[in-house]
């Protein structure tokens, strides 16, 4: 590799050819400020349109200032990162951005987490010298995401996420000049677009232009209502990230404190979505074995590969983009919805509360879950199985609003019966986790043997598309895993073309899985945070005594007392669903 010598702020250094000034500077401890630039190491996610111009530096011999994030080093380059010319330009650019930004930091959902706010603070901007018209647009509220694009600074991070990482294509820059903004095409709102509500745009938005629909007030009102019994379920990934909102290092597991906090907020029962994840495995695993046996028996209509269906962002994506393949995903509902269905039947009967008086709240790392719980097929006489879905961030807000000293809470346990879970359900939070959990159960059910090694290391990893061959006592099972919807699209294109030889495919909409979901605490482009969360999830699995879904005693009891058998009639009524074609006509560009 060719090395290049240059100097930055009088420090001489040698870096690989192709390195940008920004990265070279970081090597010698010089932090050039950036705004639009964002990079998640090892996840192949990088946004560098070079558009905000905050990172400009002075390069000797160059006519104008150079954007450090996209300018590659050249031999003998002399770079200065803090001359008067540079500081003046940088400050003016941030002032220009602020001059076209609403001054409502005090009431902005992103206050305290806003990159524009912190850079203004860092630059010591106390006055904006430019006053003039501000660009204003219609606010757009969807079931999951709110767009307030008056606050858009055209960093294009959301667009990169939506188009390159997710290939959803809902967001793109529109208009010219001063009124340019990132929006769905043809002034559509998100609901009319092909948006999957994966929320990755929200997780990377540096300002308050994209935020989640806030359900905390609705939850508080339900809690205050004496006629209601309010119960809560928490998804696996929440416990691995919630602590970050309270200043704990990334990857700190706060399961016990979270349960204690929820109890103090006023939830009558604190349950675990993990329980429902175990239930999902029972249903999905049985479905997989059923289809597999049909396939092995030579039935031509055996629907393989089977696709996991617990990710609502992914389900939306499939309904929009692969309407011809709607017969292959598992019909099992997601854990959130399975929980809701069981809570409002089995559990409501158990405690003698009417369905209408039971309010189910979920805490999810996800924004698509907000949309999912509002889907008509998950309602009985208009009453939803899950009433409100909150993000991890909203839970943190709720805890703070409830005057709870989170860090000094004792560790408490989930309530029974819907709070017991296994290690298999915890790993749902990581990419590859669902299929690993399914294999733990499917292996034992299929072969009748005990698993020697519980961890399927071959299913773990961070590559966008992974595949593994598992030996089920002589039967080779081909497993595919994709995370990030662009990778899912590749696998699905193969399936559509008949080129896929997988038996089962796990798909998660967000790169990394739920730990990096759109409802998690903001990572601000720090991929170390995501790595720590991932490790925490595997740690939680290791710490569990029961690590296979079918060994969860409360699951066994649920089947015995209520459901009968996996994929039985009752299961089909309560725990399975159907998918709809949501595709729209494609727009093609006319060329001669």
């Amino acid at each position, binding site marked *: 590799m060719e090395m290049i010598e240059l100097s930055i702020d009088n420090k001489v250094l040698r870096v690989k050819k192709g390195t940008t000034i920004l990265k070279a500077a970081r090597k010698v401890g010089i932090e050039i400020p950036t705004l639009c630039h964002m990079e998640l190491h090892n996840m192949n996610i990088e946004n560098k349109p070079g558009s905000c111009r905050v990172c400009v530096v002075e390069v000797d011999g160059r006519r104008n200032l150079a954007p450090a994030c996209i300018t590659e080093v050249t031999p003998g380059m002399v770079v200065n990162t803090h001359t008067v010319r540079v500081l003046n330009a940088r400050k003016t650019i941030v002032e*220009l951005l602020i001059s*076209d930004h609403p001054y409502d930091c005090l009431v902005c959902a992103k206050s305290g987490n806003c990159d524009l706010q912190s850079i203004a603070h860092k630059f010591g901007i106390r006055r904006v010298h430019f006053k003039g018209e501000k660009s204003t647009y219609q606010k757009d509220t969807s079931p999951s995401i709110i767009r307030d694009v008056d606050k858009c600074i055209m960093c294009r991070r959301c667009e990169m996420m939506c188009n390159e990482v997710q290939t959803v294509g809902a967001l793109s820059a529109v208009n*010219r000049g*001063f009124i340019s903004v990132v929006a769905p095409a043809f002034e559509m709102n998100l609901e009319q677009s092909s948006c999957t509500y994966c929320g990755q745009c929200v997780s990377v938005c540096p300002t308050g232009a994209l935020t989640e629909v806030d359900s905390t007030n609705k939850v508080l009102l339900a809690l205050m209502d004496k006629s209601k019994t309010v119960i809560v379920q928490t998804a696996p990934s929440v416990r691995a990230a919630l602590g970050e909102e309270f200043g704990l290092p990334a990857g700190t597991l706060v399961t016990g404190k979270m349960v204690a906090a929820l109890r103090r907020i006023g939830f009558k029962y604190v349950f675990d979505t993990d329980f429902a994840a175990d239930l999902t495995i029972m249903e999905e695993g049985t479905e997989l074995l059923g289809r597999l046996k049909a396939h092995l028996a030579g039935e031509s209509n055996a629907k393989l590969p089977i696709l996991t269906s617990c990710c609502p962002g992914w389900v939306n994506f499939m309904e929009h983009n692969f309407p011809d393949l709607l017969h292959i995903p598992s019909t099992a509902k997601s854990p959130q919805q399975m929980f809701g269905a069981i809570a409002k039947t089995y559990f409501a009967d158990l405690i003698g509360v009417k369905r209408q008086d039971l309010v189910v709240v979920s805490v999810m790392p996800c924004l698509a879950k907000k949309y999912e719980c509002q889907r008509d097929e998950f309602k009985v006489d208009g009453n939803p199985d899950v009433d409100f879905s909150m993000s991890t961030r909203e839970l943190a807000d709720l805890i703070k609003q409830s005057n709870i000293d989170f860090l000094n809470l004792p560790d408490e346990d989930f309530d029974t019966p819907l709070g017991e879970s296994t290690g298999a359900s915890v790993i749902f939070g990581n990419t590859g986790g669902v299929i690993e959990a399914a294999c733990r159960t499917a292996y034992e059910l299929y072969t009748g043997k005990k698993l020697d090694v519980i961890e399927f290391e071959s299913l773990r990893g961070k590559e966008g598309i992974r595949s593994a061959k598992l030996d089920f006592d002589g039967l080779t099972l081909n497993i595919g895993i994709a995370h990030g919807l662009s990778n899912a699209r590749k696998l699905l294109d193969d399936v559509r073309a008949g080129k896929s030889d997988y038996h089962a495919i796990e798909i998660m909409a967000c790169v990394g899985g739920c730990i990096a979901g759109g409802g998690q605490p903001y990572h601000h482009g720090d991929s170390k945070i995501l790595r720590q969360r991932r490790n925490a999830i595997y740690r939680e699995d290791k710490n569990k005594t029961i690590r296979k879904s079918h060994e969860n005693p409360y699951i066994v009891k649920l089947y015995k007392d209520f459901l009968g058998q996996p994929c039985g009639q009752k299961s089909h009524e309560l725990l399975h669903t159907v998918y709809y074609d949501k595709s729209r006509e494609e727009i093609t560009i006319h060329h*001669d």
Partner: protein
Amino acid sequence: METPVNKPKQLRIALRNCGMLDPENIAESIVRDAYQALGKVLKEYSPQECINILKQSGLRGRGGAGFPTGLKWEIASKSKSDQKYVVCNADEGDPGAFMDRSILEGDPHSVLEAMAICGYCIGADKGLIYIRAEYPLAIKRLKIAISQAMEWGLLGKNILGSGFNFEIKLCYGAGAFVCGEETALIHSMEGKRGEPTNKPPFPATSGFMKKPTNVNNVETFANIAPIILKGPEWFSSIGTKNSKGTKVFALAGKINHVGLIEVPMGTSLREIIYEIGGGIKENKKFKAVQTGGPSGGCLTEKHLDTPIDYENLIAAGSMMGSGGMIVMDENDCMVSVAKFYLDFIVGESCGKCTPCRVGNKRLYEILERITQGKGVMKDLDKLKNLSYIIKDTALCGLGQTSPNPVFSTLENFYDEYYEHVVEKKCRAGHCKNLFHYVINEELCVGCAACKRCCPVHAITGEKRKPHYIDSNICIRCNECIEKCSFDAISIQLEPKILV
């Protein structure tokens, strides 16, 4: 009759055939030597030999930046790839400019032929013309020309039996000014949003569909065939030391003969304005000429004798651009001129980078305040500083040159800015907030002609008694002055007096 076009000051190379032939009949073009150069290149020259001829000729890009064409082709020819493209930039967007359109409508084969030559030189077999959809006639004639050239074996497979293949397709632009910038143009052709990206990589190494791409302007292409046929020495004998050949300008504004002209590089502004253009309309006083389009600058009387070439224009604070030339007289307000161009830029910026998207809007707003008489001296400093920062930090050529109208008017017409800000006066009588109409009581006979024509009923008065104009109502449409037969109404260059 002698028309301005025929004056000897002009020399037509790019426009050589415009108006001389039926562009919808290839035979007429061939009679006038079309495809002779292509044949000569394919038969006699290797790609590198042909590139050398262009390098020797000194031809530079006519799109604005003036990059040496031969060198550009050479870089593209040296890029290794299985597929390369030749792109013709026909996204002419400067207000008032129509030289590319005239060439495409009047002599489409000159461009097609040159694109094929370029394809041969750089090793490309596909050409694309990016043309704005607002040019329907040019599109129609290009389509006819392409199909006729294909029929005649001058495009397509195995051209003139040489084994060289070249085909040309059209891509339509939606008329975005920024799509004249080559990286934005390429994105637009790919079906993406027309916005520029950082260079490097240059299109010559990674362009259309990430393949090496050579982008040239229409006028540049129109110069190629004559250079091949008449030799590089002939071409380089025309023009100045570093700018060879001729340049087409679209002469517009307060000048007697408006229209396209083609003059050798080095011709002075005085020759263009007073000899070819026939002088200023109504014999008014020349004030400035704006060259280089929206991102160019204004030249004044002191530049009248400067020989026009790439370097001199830049040194004078303007640029060649694609060749717009708008002449202004004493009735033009220079602050308003700067404001007009900024307005254009604010609407045509792609909106990608902050300085261009927001900075230009703020520049425009400051200029607007000044023309409304609300400016303060600090605004002049702000204008200068912000212009400097936009130039220093914007992403592409459009943004980096967008403050040029402000720079050059501030430099050359500072006193006009000063008058607007301090004296609240617009000497050209252009800024509506800074003057008002008064009726001279001694001259007014009370005929009520002005009263009758006033569209906003700002004039009052009894018959046969002097009338009065209420400045607060008046919209300064000038109708009353034109109607008054007694010269009783005059303009007072003071800000309106609010009653």
